[in-house]
């Protein structure tokens, strides 16, 4: 918050506070044998309207003597001195005003009556100053904690961004090298298929890089990427890899974070089907219901399989990104029942707004 806007907001707060302060002052100034109700009301309102004489300097003294970094004796000295000076100043303004008002016929003698209450005005000034100090310290502390929160949030967003970038950069080297090896084999067996595979791999890489740059993509784009990925892996695994999709049509327009689905399917291939000598099937079911998008990826796996490196990194990354974006509003569940591995994902439906 810069100085100017800070001052403006203080000014606004004071304008709200001025009326009750004026009433309070009028109540305090009135005495049966001294200031009349009229005197008290006029002076009370006048003093309250110049109350910023006290509250604004209080704000400055709070800034130059931050409560957590100033020794107690200096805090006391600063504020006691400031309280004295400002109250005297305030009282002086009051006296001048009373002198001036005394010329009004109806208020004759108001200066003398005001002088009787000088001590009270002085005391009220001190109390008013101290209250302002307390108020400012509290609001400064709030500002600081808000700023701290914002900064913490910014850093965590940056960290997550970095994670996503890292994920993109490491487009699974295993997958790439194995695909290249398949292409290499196909060049002599079936050159046309080798070329198809090159195109598929090129499309896959382009899509991955393109999707990663966006913050939201249509679910249909995620499905495209998965189809390319599966086409490549089918060349590698042959008959061992099967896929069955049940996709509700109106789920395709939902907006989702990019690279959400493909890591789940890749996980099913790498840690599921690849570990089965006879292979198996991946089932993908997507439904849109009651404002939620439900994604289920199910595959057979071998619970006793030799553990693969980087196990579950893809799932963890998806989880983190869901947390960062939806908080508690989205969840990812992993369920293993014997030879069945299930990942279910539920997130709120977001739809592109029509321009």
């Amino acid at each position, binding site marked *: 918050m810069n100085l100017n806007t800070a001052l403006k907001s203080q000014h606004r707060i004071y304008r709200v506070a001025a009326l009750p302060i004026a009433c309070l002052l009028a109540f305090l100034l009135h005495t049966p044998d001294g200031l009349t109700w009229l005197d008290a009301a006029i002076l009370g309102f006048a003093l309250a309207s110049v109350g910023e004489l006290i509250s604004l300097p209080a704000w400055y003294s709070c800034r130059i003597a931050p409560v957590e970094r100033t020794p107690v004796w200096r805090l006391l000295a600063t504020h006691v001195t400031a309280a004295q000076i400002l109250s005297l100043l305030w009282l002086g303004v009051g006296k001048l005003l009373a002198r001036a008002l005394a010329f009004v016929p109806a208020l004759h003698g108001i200066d003398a009556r005001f002088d009787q209450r000088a001590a009270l005005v002085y005391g009220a000034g001190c109390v008013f100053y101290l209250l302002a100090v307390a108020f400012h310290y509290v609001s400064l502390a709030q500002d600081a904690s808000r700023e701290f929160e914002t900064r913490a949030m910014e850093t965590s967003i940056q960290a997550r961004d970095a994670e996503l970038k890292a994920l993109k950069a490491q487009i699974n080297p*295993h997958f790439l090298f194995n695909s290249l090896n398949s292409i*290499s084999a196909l060049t002599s067996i079936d050159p046309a298929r080798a070329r198809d595979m090159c195109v598929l791999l090129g499309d896959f890489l382009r899509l991955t890089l393109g999707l990663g740059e966006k913050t939201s993509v249509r679910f249909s784009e995620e499905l495209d990427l998965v189809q390319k990925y599966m086409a490549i892996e089918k060349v590698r695994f042959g008959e061992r890899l099967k896929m069955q999709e049940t996709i509700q049509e109106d789920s395709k327009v939902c907006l989702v974070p990019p690279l959400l689905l493909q890591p789940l399917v890749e996980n099913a291939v790498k840690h599921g089907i690849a570990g089965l000598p006879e292979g198996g099937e991946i089932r993908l079911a997507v439904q849109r219901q009651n404002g939620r998008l439900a994604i289920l990826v199910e595959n057979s796996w071998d619970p006793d399989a*030799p553990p693969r490196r980087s196990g579950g990194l893809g799932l963890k990354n998806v989880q983190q990104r869901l947390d960062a974006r939806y908080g508690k509003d989205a969840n990812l569940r992993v369920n293993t029942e014997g030879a069945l591995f299930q990942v279910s994902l539920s997130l709120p439906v977001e739809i592109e707004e029509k321009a």
Partner: protein
Amino acid sequence: MSTAQGKRWKALIVDDEELARHIVREMLQSHPEIEIAAECANGMEAVKAVAEHKPTLIFLDVQMPKLTGFDVLELIGTDAPVIFVTAYDEYAMRAFDVHAVDYLLKPIGRERFEAALERAKRRLGERMPAPQELAAAARPPQQFLERLVVKDGTRVTLIPVGKLDYAEAQDDYVALASQGRKHLKQQTIASLEACLNPDNFVRIHRSYIVNLERVVRIEPYAKESRIAILTDGARLPVSRAGYARLKSLLDERS
């Protein structure tokens, strides 16, 4: 040109991907002296094929279903040169470098293939490094064994470490007790101990490693010695040093 007599080498190709096997097969075509004895799509088949064909050269993929290339090597304990084939695995590659085992990286290139073949031929008869050491070096740091592979004849058994009750040293072998059965495996108890997570497995005696989860109680036996009673009733001797290790682990847990 080549006759059966001309083929002095018998090769085995082990890879779960048909296209990957095809490349090796194709590259071997220009080597009439090498006969392809068999191709295997997984580790179990490989273990059987080795017993059956007694190959003199093995191309072995690292990542396969059921048994990894390291598991296969451990089970076959062969004198034949092994050329590992892998796509990308920094730890495995480091292990190969350390133990001077030859390996090919996918996609496999002709030049590299020929070099590996030449080296393998020169090394015929040299024993491969101890498979357990190789496998241990290929494990990422801080990662312990998750399962043990044992072979009885041509039958291969996988024992998840959680199902291992205890291990007992028997000369050059260890007997692995799991679910009421004992499996013999050619390995020293010290090298087995090094592969197991020390939070769960304790060397309670010169000849015994026990799964902490199975220990029910410890009873004094004679002066300076004790006996550990396991859930299945087995009684294992506990040495003084073993008792100290056991006690500190149990104290940590409580």
